[in-house]
Every structure is written in structure tokens, then in C-alpha cells.
């Protein structure tokens, strides 16, 4: 083989590999969309390319009761959690990133450890607390319990981001006699917006997808969030699982996430690698 042929073969192999990577990543979701447009008998015939286009499943997903309010539940919980985490995290990360004080390393260690807590380890304790507060089956139980993963994550990532900002900015303000709160508001907040959007988005996705707490702390269909709702769609028997409905609901709750992730792709990657704490 000549050198040219070897190179040709190499790049051919490379593009095959690329095709495999793209195909395995996209095919399952493509198949979910395909299934969601099928109904009746054709659901049980395997197709690789679109054949039917029946939006019945989408209509029945919304007609079947609580789906719309379940989406609102998820939006509400995730939004409130993100806002609360960001408010607490901005000031905390300023203290942790910009001020050297004794005990800072230990604090960061604690925060990192909390972000690695297995959720199950706090489940029974939280359950008892939530019942004692009268929050069982209330969305506030989720707002409350989700802080356990969103807060350490946002603090950690914002601290990493804030550390990178040049110290001169701050020194000048200190010389002018600015108080820390003013420094945060006037100097760091404007610079930190991109980082806050990124961490906020990642925390939102995490809260949107959470399953264990939502499964445990909510007990009625009207209160459930979408992941639990989707997990609970079932038929009369094992043989009557309404796959068309499940796939339609899945597509509805996933498409916005995929669009967000694609739109903020670069920022998300930098946020993930800066945090490297949560997947």
C-alpha cells in the first residue's frame, strides 16, 4: 500500500468511528420520537424510519389528567431551588474565593463532601423532618430537600469561577473604601453573570431530573413532578404498557432540556469541568 492509501484508510476508519459515536448517541432519542408518533397496532412493529405521524399520543398525554400541572410542578420546584441556591451561593462563594481566613480549606472540604452525599443517606432523616414540618406531599418538601445537591454544587462552581477574576479590581474598590456587599454587587455580579447562568442551568437540570426525593415525599398525582409521573405511567397489565404515551411524555419533557444544553453547550462544558462535582 502506498502512503496515500494508508492515509485514506485511516481517515476512512476515523469517519466510521465518528459515525458510530454520533449514531449511538442520537439513535435512542430518535427512536423515542419515532415511537411517540405511532399508535395502535403499528406500535408493535419495529421501524427504523418514520412511517406514521399520529399526534394522538401527545394529545392524550395532556388529556389524561395531571400532566400539564406536573410540568408546572417541576418548573416551580426547579426554579425556586435555583434562585435560592444562587442567592446563597453568590455571597458564600465571595467569602470562600476572595478572602483568606482560617478554616477555609475545611469549609471547602465539607462542601465537597456534602455534594458527594448519597441521597439515600439523608432520606429517612429528611422524611421524618418533612413530616414533622407538615410538608409531606407539598412541593416545598422538594424545594427544601433539593438544596442538598444544588447548593454545594453552585457554591463550588461559583467559588472556582470567582477565584479566577483579577484581584486588582477588588483592591481598587477596597482602597476607595467600598464595603464587601458593595464589592459583590458592583464588581463581581456583573462579571459573574455568565457563570451564574451556567451553574443555574446545571442546577435546574439536576432538580428537573431528580427522582428519589420526588418519589418519596410526594404522594398524589396532582403534586408529582414529571420524572415520577413518567415512571408511573402504566397499563392494566405488563402487556398493556402504553408505550406511545410514555414516549410522547418523555419527548415533551426532554426536548426543552436538549435545546437548552445545545444552546449553552460551551458554557455547560466549562461549568461541568470547573465543578467536576456532579454529573
Amino acid at each position, binding site marked *: 500500500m502506498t502512503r496515500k492509501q494508508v492515509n485514506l484508510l485511516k481517515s476512512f476508519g476515523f469517519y466510521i468511528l465518528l459515525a458510530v459515536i454520533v449514531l449511538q448517541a442520537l439513535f435512542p432519542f430518535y427512536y423515542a420520537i419515532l415511537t411517540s408518533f405511532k399508535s395502535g397496532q403499528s406500535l408493535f412493529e419495529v421501524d427504523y424510519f418514520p412511517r406514521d405521524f399520529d399526534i394522538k399520543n401527545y394529545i392524550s398525554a395532556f388529556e389524561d389528567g395531571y400532566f400539564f400541572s406536573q410540568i408546572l410542578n417541576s418548573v416551580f420546584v426547579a426554579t425556586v431551588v435555583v434562585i435560592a441556591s444562587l442567592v446563597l451561593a453568590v455571597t458564600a462563594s*465571595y467569602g470562600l474565593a476572595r478572602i483568606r481566613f482560617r478554616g477555609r480549606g475545611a469549609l471547602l472540604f465539607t462542601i465537597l463532601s456534602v455534594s*458527594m*452525599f448519597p441521597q439515600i443517606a439523608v432520606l429517612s432523616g429528611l422524611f421524618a423532618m418533612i413530616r414533622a414540618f407538615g410538608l409531606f406531599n407539598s412541593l416545598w418538601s422538594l424545594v427544601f430537600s433539593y438544596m442538598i445537591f444544588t447548593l454545594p454544587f453552585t457554591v463550588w462552581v461559583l467559588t472556582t469561577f470567582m477565584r479566577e477574576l483579577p484581584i486588582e479590581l477588588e483592591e481598587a474598590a477596597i482602597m476607595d473604601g467600598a464595603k464587601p456587599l458593595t464589592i459583590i454587587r458592583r464588581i463581581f455580579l456583573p462579571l459573574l453573570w455568565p457563570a451564574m447562568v451556567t451553574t443555574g442551568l446545571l442546577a435546574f437540570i439536576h432538580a428537573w431530573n431528580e427522582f428519589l426525593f420526588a418519589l418519596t415525599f410526594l404522594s398524589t398525582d396532582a403534586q408529582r413532578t414529571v420524572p415520577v409521573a413518567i415512571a408511573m405511567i402504566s397499563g392494566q397489565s405488563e402487556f398493556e404498557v402504553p408505550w406511545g404515551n410514555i414516549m410522547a411524555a418523555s419527548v415533551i419533557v426532554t426536548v426543552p432540556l436538549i435545546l437548552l444544553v445545545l444552546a449553552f453547550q460551551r458554557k455547560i462544558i466549562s461549568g461541568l469541568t470547573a465543578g467536576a462535582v456532579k454529573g
Partner: protein
Amino acid sequence: MTSGSGARQTGLIRQRTRSAWMFVAPMLVVLAIVALYPLAETIWYGFTDASLNSIDSARFVGLQNYLEWLDYGDGDGEWLGLLADERWWQAVWNTLRFAFISVSLETLFGMIIALVLNKQFAGRSFVRAAVLVPWAIPTVVSAKLWVWMLHDQFGIINDLMLTLGLISKPIAWTASPDTAMTAILIVDIWKTTPFMALLILAGLQMIPRDIYEAARLDQIGPIKLFRKVTLPLVMPAVLVAIVFRALDALRVFDVVYIMTPNSDETRSMSVFARENLFDYDNFAYGSAASTLLFLIIALITISFIYGTKMDLSGDKS
């Protein structure tokens, strides 16, 4: 701020330290309420006889949930408690096996994808976006989706494998004990490989270009280049990624709970704990199991942070 002295500066430092604590305090209070206190409660319930309806009147029973000798009174007896519970050890074994296999394969595939994405080619940003898609799909959705794709009669995976002649009759992936774990692994690896790939890619991109330039001039072959240059340099990033994924895999719940409920072959420690807490009316026992899982994960975390001498304070940089 450098060593400049004077009362003004010391006062300033003291004031800044005070404000640092003031800024950190609200976050710490919230963390203590949502994490430390419930954790302490969980540990406490593990030492009690709490059941779902008697949580408030739980009594201390010592180590009974962990290990207890039940004396029959006739000189015979048996060991009871988690440490003598075969189902618990089965769950421990399932979880460890799951974590080991999934993290190994994710590292391998993540490395391959990262190496591909680290090259320059037309459409690279499209491929990078595509790779992110499985990660963006909620776990519940991907679990359901794969249950459907792995369906024994109507599933596309069986159809594909039959067409390709890889199998002669459909496999009941999630229902059969032999393949249940494989099914779980497929979903988890599919979903979390992107995360691994991104972390490794970030590590690859920190390697200075001129090292490769020099290697090219020295005519070092690609395999040797990977072994001697790329791999050692990217290793720290890979190790961090492995540990984070491993901790995540050890607490696996959603995929197992949705894909193979009630399967002895796949029941993870988290699933075991939740079953006891809420399905079997064994609140104390489930709490004890949760505590053990927490201990395992805490040990790994601490040894990792010490082992890698992680620079937490950021003072060195």
C-alpha cells in the same frame, strides 16, 4: 494583599475575615439543616426500632439492626441483622460489580470519544453537541426508553440483533436474571459516558501543543505517543473523573428501580435501603443500610481527597 504592615491593614484583614464568615454563614446554616441534621437522624434511626408509623416513638435498640445473636433458648440460635443478611450482601455485591464495570467501560469509551473530539475535523462542534444528548436526557426517561428498546417481543435491539444474526431468538433483557445487570449497565454507560468524555477532553486540551510538535519531529509513532505522552499527562484528569463517577455509581438508584424492580440480580444498596424504609415497613433497618452505604462512600471520598492531595483552599494557585 502582600506583607504591607500597619494597623490599618491588620484591621482591614480582621474586618474581611469577619465579613467572610458572615457571607458563608447563611449557606452553612442551610446545608446543616438539609444535610447534616438529616444524616445524623438517619444514623440515629439505624440504632432504633423505628417503623414507618412509629418514627416519633422510636426506641434505642443498640446494634440490633446491624448484628444480633438471636438465642432460641435451647442452646441454638442464629445471627440476625444487616451484617448477617444475605440479601444485603447480594445488594453490596451487585452495586460494587455495577460500579466497577460501568466506570471501567465509561472510562474506556470516554477516552475514545475524547480523543476523537480532540482532533480537528469538519463538523466537530456538531459531534460534540450530539455526544451531549444522552447526558441531557433525564435518567427516568432514558431508563424507560431503553426498557422499550430492550423489550423482548417488540424491542428494536432484539430486532436488530436477529436481523444481523447475532442471536437466534429474542432475549428478555430486563426480565431474565442473566441479562438484567447487562441491561442496567447498557443504559448507565450510554447515559454517563458523555460526562466522562467531557472531563477527559478538558484534560486533553490542557496538554501543551508543542509537546506533540516535538514528538512529531522525533517521528514517534501514534501508539507510543499515546502511551508515553498523552496518557501520563491526562491521567490526573482521568482519575478525578473516575472517582466522581464511581461515587455516583455506588449510589445508583433510578435506573435499577425503574428497569428491574424486585430483581435480586440488580438490587443496589440504595434500592435495598429504600425498599426497607418504605415498602417493607422496616424503617430502622433501611436507615441502618443507608448509614452503611454512607460510610462506604465517605471512606472512599476521604481517602481520595487525601490520596490526591487535592488543593481545596486554592492558596497554592
